[in-house]
């Protein structure tokens, strides 16, 4: 006998699922999709009240793979924030869940990212950060560590952009970092982000199976590539299984080996961290960075900041639901204006 587990809306988790993923097997992004499904279900969000937003990239394709009962918009590269902003103005009651990549956000879309934060748009903004442009086959992104080297390319000599530090500096009302393999932590963070009113940013380290940062360690992959020219790319994508699930207790850290053999160190921010203190959040990010670690968890949170729809003083009804009378001024009003302009 199977036991059906339902959420507060009496919905089964399957109501939150999407289409079949076409990403490389083992891609971190698929893990994030599963967590989105889990968190939305656990939070009891009505699927019809959610709007899924994304830009362009492997990461931005994922809205097709979760929340199939929600409308979505897979927009253009780097400019999902503006589309979300416009939709938010018209229907402030929608719950916006947006997915972007590090190329989509930290390069082409950095301007829109910054300004969406400044406006405190009411949305969850997930960056599936893999240090590369997955969809265009592995070029470095602007979040890749300095010193990263590709076999055929130059060493990356540029400093990375830390999207959390940047968001903190811009006064973002909710800033968190996590890892695609940290299902428990990511679910908790996403659930919190979904309940937050305002811009909630979660920078999720989400490794790319196929084009990880360091080509050198990608031995088998390159071997195949160099020895068999006629092979099409999809033919030699290794079938990794997703990274194991990890759960690092607060204040502790652990080394994790990625698909390409490289290692990252994740540290969960301690329970003593004051999430209302931007300065200590920034210190935590920069201290971890100086020790070649990534600090994860909820870094900063402020639930009091007005959103753009608050600040603009919009009428109570979402603008998409206004009647014609509410949208078009009266016949008399135009007569009045004509006469005023006539100087009468």
């Amino acid at each position, binding site marked *: 006998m199977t036991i059906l587990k339902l959420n507060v809306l009496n919905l089964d988790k399957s109501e939150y699922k999407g289409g079949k993923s076409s990403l490389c097997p083992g891609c971190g992004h698929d893990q994030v999709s599963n967590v989105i499904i889990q968190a939305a279900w656990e939070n009891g969000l009505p*699927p*019809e*009240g959610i*709007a*899924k937003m994304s830009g362009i990239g492997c990461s931005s394709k994922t*809205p097709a793979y979760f929340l*199939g*009962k*929600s*409308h*979505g*918009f*897979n*927009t*253009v590269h780097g*400019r999902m*924030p*503006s*589309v*979300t*902003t*416009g*939709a*938010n*103005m*018209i*229907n402030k*009651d929608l719950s916006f869940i947006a997915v972007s990549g590090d190329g989509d956000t930290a390069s082409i879309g950095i*301007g*829109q990212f*910054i*300004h969406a934060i400044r*406006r405190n748009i009411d949305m969850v903004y997930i960056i599936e950060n893999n240090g590369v442009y997955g969809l265009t086959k592995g070029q470095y992104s602007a979040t890749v560590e300095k010193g990263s080297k590709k076999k055929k390319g130059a060493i990356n000599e540029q400093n990375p952009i830390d999207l959390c530090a940047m968001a903190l500096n811009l006064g973002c009302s909710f800033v968190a970092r996590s890892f695609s393999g940290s299902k428990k932590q990511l679910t908790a963070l996403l659930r919190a982000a979904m309940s937050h009113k305002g811009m909630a940013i979660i920078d999720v380290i989400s490794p790319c199976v196929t084009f990880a940062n360091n080509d050198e360690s990608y031995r088998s992959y390159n071997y195949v590539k160099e020895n068999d020219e006629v092979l099409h790319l999809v033919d030699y994508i290794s079938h990794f299984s997703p990274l194991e699930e990890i759960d690092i207790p607060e204040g502790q850290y652990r080394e994790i080996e990625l698909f390409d053999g490289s290692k990252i160190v994740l540290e969960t921010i301690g329970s003593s961290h004051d999430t209302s203190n931007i300065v200590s959040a920034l210190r935590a990010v920069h201290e971890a960075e100086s020790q070649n670690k990534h600090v994860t968890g909820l870094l900063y949170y402020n639930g009091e900041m007005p959103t*753009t*729809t608050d600040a*603009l*003083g*919009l*009428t*109570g*009804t*979402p*603008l*998409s*639901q*206004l009647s*014609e009378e*509410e*949208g*078009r*001024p009266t*016949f008399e*009003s*135009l007569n009045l*204006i*004509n006469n005023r*302009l*006539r*100087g*009468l």
Partner: protein
Amino acid sequence: MKSEVNNFIINIATANGTGSQSSNLILLHSMFEMGIPVSGKNLFPSNISGLPTWFIIRASESGYQAPGDKTNIQILMNKDTWEKDIAKIEPGAIIIYNENVKLPVEREDCKIFSMPMTKMARGIAPKFAKLMANMYYVGGIAHILGIKSEDIEKSVSSQFKGKDRAIEMNMRAIREGISYAAEHWGNETTFSAERRDKDPDTYLIEGNEASALGSIYGGVNMLAWYPITPSSSVAEGIIKWLPELRTAKDGGTTCAVIQAEDELAAVGMVLGAGWAGGRGMTCTSGPGISLMSEFIGLSYFAEVPGVIWDVNRVGPSTGLPTRTQQGDLSMLYEASHGDTQHIVLIPGNVDECFEFGWRAFDYAERYQTMVFGFSDLDLGMNRWPTTGFVYPDSPMDRGKVIHTQKQLDAIENYGRYRDVDGDGIAYRTLPGSGIDPILYRGTGHDEDGIYSEEPDVYHKNMARLRKKIEGSRDVLPAPILREEEIKEVGIVFYGSMEYTITEIDDILEQSGLSVSTCRVRALPYHSDLEGFIDRHETNIVLEMNRDGQLYGILRRELPVKLLSKLHSLAYSDGMPPRARLYADKILQLLEGL
């Protein structure tokens, strides 16, 4: 000598940022209120202070609105353009200059009058003498034309609304100017301004403010914009009128306004608004359209409504930012990569700026696509007469939107992109409704909106999109035809050229030609245009750009048998069209045929 009544052209040369705009508008409005048919044109530089500015006022009993080819009264205030301005004046003209500039005016063939404008202004407002000096030429011109100070008072009051002290000081300056001229210049009667019966309904307004009001009556729900000359005043007009016109019962606004970080974002917000079921718009000029192109393509392909007002300035690139042109037409019609085609509404006067302002949203939602309003600096930033805007004559057209499951179930074989009605327009559902949710995308999609790279699916979808926009041809505003009995020459034109066409037409007819005109008001063009071209022996497409952009579009789309009758006259130098110049070029072209 008998004086020339209500037929003269005044050219006022000043520097930007010296406050001359108030004086110029006071002059223009005073004559307008006297019932004299006048038009004003501001030729301003792309800077805030110091560069040369010319304001041209033309009074014409025939109602001609173009700046005219010849100056009758020249005001000299700007030392930087002094010599050039003097060199341009034709013999016989009247010159009025500010003595305190201390530069010579040596033109024996003209009537020259001077006034110590700055010095006199110092007597009234020592600190603002430079600004106030401009009021003295108002006085000087009033004397020359025989305008009384009482006729000016009303315009001064409305220019400095509520600021009693400013009204008093400026009026004093104007009166002093009139007295000084009367005392020192003697009786000058070459030109005079005479009161006429003014239609009490008529008033002057800028095209941009008309578009702004039209958009508000069209129910705009979101305006996202990034400042750029000459379009900013569309946004500023909307912002100005919203509180009065669009405050809901609960005190909140029914239109969100966002000053975006750039045009990429502004148009993105428009798409977001349209996708969510609202009426979103932006306004910009050529450089902004260039940036917006990718999103415009997304609007076309994913079928998301939106409105963009393009107030054309001179391109390419930054070009001449404060000069006018019709240089964006072909870009708008086909903006973005791949095969696209967009609806372009082309107002030719301020009444149509208002009308197309509200209609644009109806077309955008009906055809689920981006609709352009195409204006230009000349129409948008100068003041033109209207007898009053006309209230929308039809309820809003919100297009094929499904709001309930029942509506959806009533449609056989529904799919977001399936042509169930045979008109190319599919039904859509809105986010938040929970009805048939799909992921909108700019990637290839089938009739249900699912990703697809199938050759047939792509081909069929593109064919449907063409059919959809083609279907708008005879729904969009039809051309305005003014046809002669004898169908000799037909002039096909569009946009702000409307204000010059009568004068061009009159000049051409003086040379014995029979000239009909056809003003195109939208793209894709209406089928009436084909009939017009067919009926006329020779047709000339007249436009303000270098390449003949409408001509190019017509060459591609008109039936081949009409092409031999079609010729292009395209000319652009950044200036508003001067009738004589265009008429001469048309005559030349006809001679060469």
